[in-house]
């Protein structure tokens, strides 16, 4: 029943992502005015519990969501299976979590 669990994980993570992405999109359209500026971004995020936890949640959800998604594509389009597929999925998850959380830390931690 692995596939059913992956399905559930992907749908649940998608549901978590939806509001976060919506927010992100809104922010992007809003913030792009006048160009992006590191100071502006960091001023908003540094030390903010709200932004910190939102981004952390985003990273966890997207890591789960995207690694399952990629797994599916690799299986269906490239025929990957077995240990290769498993290994890649875990690696993907770990990589995204690591890179994502590091980025969150970078913009949030004072």
């Amino acid at each position: 029943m692995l596939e059913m669990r992956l399905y559930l994980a992907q749908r649940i993570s998608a549901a978590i992502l939806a509001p976060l992405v919506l927010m992100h999109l809104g922010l992007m359209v809003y913030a792009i005015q006048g160009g992006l500026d590191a100071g502006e971004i960091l001023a908003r995020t540094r030390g903010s519990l709200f932004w910190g936890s939102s981004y952390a949640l985003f990273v966890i959800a997207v890591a789960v969501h995207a690694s399952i998604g990629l797994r599916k594509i690799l299986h269906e389009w490239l025929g990957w299976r077995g240990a290769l597929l498993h290994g890649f999925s875990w690696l993907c998850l770990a990589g995204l979590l690591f890179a994502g959380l590091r980025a969150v830390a970078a913009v949030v931690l004072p």
Partner: protein
Amino acid sequence: MKAHRKQPLYLAFLLHRVSGLALALFLPFHFYVLALSLQGNQKLDSFLHWSQLPLVKFAETGLVFLLAIHLLGGLRLLALENLPWSNAQKNYAAIAVASAFFVALGFLLRAF
């Protein structure tokens, strides 16, 4: 493209997949850029500066479109799977594409 694939809902599937794939490939890069701020604001800023280039702005618009269409397409799928069946799937898919397009347009207009 094979003929049996040329129907709106297959194209919607394909768009969802391609956008998801593109987003997933872009994600590590995105994280990398943000992580630059670990090395100080200037590093990030010098990078964000680069993003003033029109070409980059167009590329970013593309990303916004992909994110929006993947979001809306994903919502359509969640609804399809979890709500009572609706026969208006083609309409929903079309609405998703149109809305994503407008979001991206909004982004582009504000970017310049």
